[in-house]
């Protein structure tokens, strides 16, 4: 089932083109990695897809239903959340529990199953023992881990992740990728992930979108050549 369909998308900041000719889709069971040099408007593309920005041309269709015909739940991990550093009064447990709210728990108490989900999510990133800590007291890598735990607690149909592994060591990264792969292959989740670790991620992703600077444009404008399968045998980047 198609979760995201990006069709000839272009995005301009005022009159300056930043993205042109972007077309791809993310289906249920896809693990798509989105790469590009620094400043390649990867985050801008994600924000267009999520409806946080409006495309200047073309369109984005974000499915409203999941493959079981229920309401599609999107789990978004932004690159940076200012509240993490601004003394937001929340414990790790409170924050990860909030991941369950979009699962029909806005106005209901969390039940046993929700709490079990939260526990498993925190354990999967090794943060269960830190659950009573204030989020502002955590290190950068730990904050990243609880963002991941939170999105796993949501158990979304579609993961949209913006450089989620920043500050994590290579072993934790690999465990995280395995978990995502399991979610896409076994549970049919759709995954769209911005990353700089494309060497590490190649063996897990099944699609690779690379944003490349348009040479014929006087602006710093990015496009994609095609949506391809990640090459798994040679280590040079595209």
């Amino acid at each position: 089932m198609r979760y995201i369909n990006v069709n000839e998308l272009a995005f301009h900041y005022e009159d300056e083109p930043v993205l042109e000719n972007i077309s791809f889709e993310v289906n249920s069971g896809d693990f798509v990695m989105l790469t590009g040099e620094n400043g390649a408007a990867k985050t801008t593309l994600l924000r267009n897809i999520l409806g946080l920005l409006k495309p200047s041309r073309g369109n984005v269709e974000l499915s409203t239903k999941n493959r079981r015909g229920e309401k599609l739940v999107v789990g978004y991990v932004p690159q940076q959340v200012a509240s993490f550093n601004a003394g937001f009064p929340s414990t790790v447990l409170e924050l990860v529990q909030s991941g369950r709210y979009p699962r029909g728990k806005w106005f209901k108490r969390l039940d046993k199953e929700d709490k079990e989900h939260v526990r498993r999510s925190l354990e999967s990133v090794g943060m269960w023992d830190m659950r009573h800590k204030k989020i502002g007291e955590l290190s950068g890598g730990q904050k990243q881990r609880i963002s991941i735990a939170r999105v796993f607690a949501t158990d979304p149909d579609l993961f949209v992740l913006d450089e989620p592994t920043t500050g994590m060591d290579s072993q934790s990264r690999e465990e995280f990728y395995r978990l995502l792969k399991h979610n896409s292959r076994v549970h049919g989740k759709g995954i769209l992930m911005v990353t700089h670790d494309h060497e590490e991620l190649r063996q897990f992703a099944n699609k690779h979108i690379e944003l490349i600077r348009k040479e014929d444009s006087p602006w710093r404008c990015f496009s994609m050549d095609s949506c391809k399968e990640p090459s798994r045998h040679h280590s040079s980047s595209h």
Partner: protein
Amino acid sequence: MFFYGFMQRAFQASFLISLTAPILGLFLILRRQSLMADTLSHVSLAGVALGLLLGISPTWTNIFVVMVVAVALEYLRLVYRTYSEISVAMLMSGGMAVALVLMGLNESGTSVSINQFLFGSIVTISQEQVILLAVLTVIIIILYIVFRKPMYILTFDEDTAFTAGLPVRAMSILFNVLTGVTIAVIMPIVGALLVSAIIVLPAAISMRLSKSFNGVILIGIVVALIGMLSGLVASYQYGTPPGASITLIFIVLFGLTSLIKKTLSSSRRERLNKRRDLAGDQ
């Protein structure tokens, strides 16, 4: 002092404000809108001046004007997303300017009334205001209980809230309007110049004392009760303006909690270092 009707009403009003101020204050701080309370209190002066000029109840003109501006604030916040203080500066000075112009147009000697609204006065609290405040308190507490989870996500990160399917804009406007109405109602009691301190300080103090969201609200209510009630007693005893007395008590409480917290954390650090040194020696 407790036998006077106006003091009884003042204590009732202070109790009710203590229940609502930390809730609104926490969200204002976390949404980086602490100055919004100040803006709305200046604007509410224009509402009062309009009521006095038209010869109708300033409470209702005040509520109306503040509600309109609260909606405008959300629009300006989106327009000046990166420089949100522009909207604050614009509306704060604009509100004050309109108030002064309307007062100038009113030739029936309203300066006494305006002074009461600027600095607050215990004797101005009417039974009608206490009832209005009680209704508002019930509404805010119910809304907090019902919308606690969506508001938690909204204040944590608006983008995440949007992708989770929350009506971010509608929630922000509702919150601004509710804050505006609260300010319009409590402004005559504590004074336009200090109303934002009464709303923001209890939450700012309790944020230093609690790790959790609900903990901040509960401790904030206790802090607000201590500050409001003792400030009111001090105001009566020494004949000082209630808003100023309460604000000073909150500032002393803020200083004390900061000092105690700093002492505790440095002694904890020392204990840890000693333990580390002992382990190193062994």
